[in-house]
């Protein structure tokens, strides 16, 4: 008994020391295969998967089962047009039981909330098909509404990816429309439109083989929705081309089934599943990550990595810092002169320590400003995910503290930023970090005291940070995180 009590105590103490596993990957039970585009309905986020059903989230970070999608089949997609949610899915094909005969079907509902009295799917019917012999297997449909036209791509590795046109008012296939071949070597396609270009994304590689899956997402583009699509080397997607958007890394294998989640204001994310999340028993899980754009091509961004950083203003290049007296650091040189090699051996000099820097800091709240980055402790911030504090699409909230201390960045009721001596977990001390399409970041408090207006960290002056409504134009509300 004594031994068991000691052992139990030991384990209890150990569990207090080891932090709960927390990363920017989604929380809850995000288990799904072939997720549809993530979409909002009645204040919640939804995604549907192969087989039926799907996931629901209140905030886009913590996901649970509960979405309802009848019809079975594979790899659905969803789009909202007017007051209807159209859902497309495929039945019959995919090579299961050796068959490539397949139908793409569409249905609609007024809400995706299965508890709502308005919930209920109405069948449109078949909008595309394959007969099992022709050079196509009609599965994995995906919608694009652009320039007043509604397009649907579909297909898999058996033969071609095809595009057809639907009527955006009804969801039905336009009479007389002929399918057009647009790509090979892919499945799980998705379509985007941006700045005059149509983008066809598709998943290449091997699916469904756990940590041996080479599933990866590639893209080509065209000025016309029906192609020809080419990649960054000019290789046609009809000849196997495709520029890489995202592949497996770290602990996750085989990203596939791209879906765009456009949150406005220059914040775009994309959803996908991983064939194997090695931290979750190798299961297939949903993820949501930033989408970047470089030279007219989409690039898969990474979830924000917790760590210690300089927070640099894209406006001025100045670093966010405590507004405290500057403490000089002896670097062994006279003010003028002393150039050339050192007298004596070359030796490294220590950084300024937290103790040296903080000796002049006042107690209590300390203001912040922006100034030249001088590699000082009062300019280095540790950013850590906060467990059980909720999140936003793709990510938990973070606390931002001066490295080596508990002094936390906080929003004030006056719409300014300040630091408080200790992190208490209040919503004004929780920060949302979204990567923008150009690679910089938007930083927003979960909420400002006594206000419902969303605000973002903004360099209203070259040296002056504040909180203001996010302005996607210009650089004053854009930030970079640099290694200290």
């Amino acid at each position: 008994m004594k031994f068991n009590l000691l052992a139990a105590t030991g384990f209890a103490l150990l569990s207090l020391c080891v932090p709960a596993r927390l990363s920017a990957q989604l929380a809850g039970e995000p288990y799904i295969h072939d997720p549809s585009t993530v979409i909002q309905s009645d204040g919640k986020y939804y995604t549907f998967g192969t087989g039926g059903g799907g996931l629901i989230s209140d905030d886009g970070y913590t996901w649970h089962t509960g979405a309802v999608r009848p019809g079975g089949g594979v790899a659905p997609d969803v789009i909202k047009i007017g007051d209807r949610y159209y859902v497309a899915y495929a039945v019959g094909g995919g090579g299961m039981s050796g068959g490539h005969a397949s139908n793409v079907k569409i249905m609609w509902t007024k809400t995706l909330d299965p508890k709502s009295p308005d919930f209920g799917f109405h069948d449109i019917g078949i909008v595309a098909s394959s007969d099992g012999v022709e050079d196509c297997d009609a599965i994995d449909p995906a919608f694009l509404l652009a320039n007043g036209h509604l397009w649907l791509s579909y297909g898999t590795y058996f033969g071609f990816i095809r595009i057809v046109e639907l009527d955006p008012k009804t969801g039905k296939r336009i009479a007389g429309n002929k399918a057009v071949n647009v790509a090979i070597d892919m499945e799980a396609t998705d379509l985007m439109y941006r700045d005059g270009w149509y983008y066809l994304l598709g998943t290449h590689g091997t699916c469904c083989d756990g940590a041996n899956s080479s599933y990866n997402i590639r893209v080509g583009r065209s000025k016309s929705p029906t192609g020809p699509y080419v990649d960054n080397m000019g290789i046609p997607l009809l000849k196997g081309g495709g520029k890489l958007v995202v592949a497996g890394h770290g602990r996750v294998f085989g990203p596939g089934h791209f879906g765009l989640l456009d949150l406005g204001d220059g914040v775009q994310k994309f959803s996908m599943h991983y064939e194997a999340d090695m931290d979750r028993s190798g299961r297939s899980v949903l993820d949501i990550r930033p989408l970047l754009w470089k030279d007219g091509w989409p690039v898969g961004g990474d979830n924000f990595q917790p760590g210690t950083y300089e927070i640099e203003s894209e406006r001025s290049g100045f670093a966010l810092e405590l507004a405290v007296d500057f403490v000089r650091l002896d670097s062994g040189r006279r003010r003028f002169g002393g150039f050339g090699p050192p007298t004596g051996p070359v030796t490294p000099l220590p950084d300024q320590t937290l103790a040296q820097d903080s000796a002049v800091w006042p107690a209590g709240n300390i203001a912040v400003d922006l100034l030249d980055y001088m590699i000082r402790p009062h300019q280095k911030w540790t950013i850590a995910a906060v467990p059980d504090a909720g999140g936003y699409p793709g990510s938990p909230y973070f606390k931002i503290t001066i490295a080596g201390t508990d002094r936390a960045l906080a929003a004030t009721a006056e719409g300014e930023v300040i630091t408080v001596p200790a992190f208490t977990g209040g919503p004004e001390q929780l920060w949302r970090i979204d990567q923008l399409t150009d690679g910089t970041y938007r930083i927003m408090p979960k909420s400002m005291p006594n206000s419902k207006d969303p605000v973002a960290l903004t360099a209203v002056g070259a040296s002056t940070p504040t909180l203001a409504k996010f302005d996607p134009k210009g650089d004053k509300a854009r930030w970079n995180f640099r290694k200290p």
Partner: protein
Amino acid sequence: MALRTNCKSRRRHTMKTFRKFVMMGIGVPAVLAVAAVSVAQAPPPTAPPPAAAAPGDAWPPAGGPNHLPPKQDGPRTIAPYFTPVTSRPKAPDADGFLERWLLLEPIGKPNRSNTVFTGSYVRSAFNTEYFPNQFTVVPHNGDKVTVAGQELAWHALDSANFDVKLFRFAYGLNKPTYGVIFWAVTVVDSPREMKNVRLAVGSNSASMWWLNGNEAVALFDDRRMVMDDAVSKRLTLNKGRNVLRGAVINGPGLSDFCVRFVDENGDPIKGITTSLE
């Protein structure tokens, strides 16, 4: 759930894997067979290039929008993907892809998955002697070989596309489409010696290629066909006749290959033709 039986991966395979191929000594005749395309009762049509043109009928199909179109039935044919060759030499297409080939009906090599096609496996599979003079023969249309008790014919064909759709070749002849090895031979005529050319290949799935008896390119692991996927070291095309031979292996998949010669800039070389002499 998306398609699984044709899942392929695409891994880069550079000339670092170029190795002396010990099969040099194995001479195996590759016999040219006249296309026993007697399966197709109708005269072969002049196949239009499918490419990006609308492939199907206008919507809705017969029977209405909520019914599957009737499955194609009737005798199988390799048209419109292939036509029998004429006696005139054939130039590569505008992008340099070689479209005239002698293709051997598929040899059975059962595999339920494409994950086995490591370099070791593929080399061993192609090292095996399936028929005499396998690495030296330039067969004729209609020539036959016997492999594991099965008589297989060589077909002299022109592909209607930049790629040679081996799946459609096998399917159209009522041969096995999955778990197979295909052998292909062509003769490239060059007006002059050309140095520093590269053989650029894409294949589904793994494949190996030999120019004038020397290993030129190998594509291992589970692959799909991507143009210019694997490219040889710098090679020399002889003035006159050059024999290009390939072997493609696949499990469940859409067997296929595309082959062209490119110059230092990656552009197709000009002036060559293919015949089957």
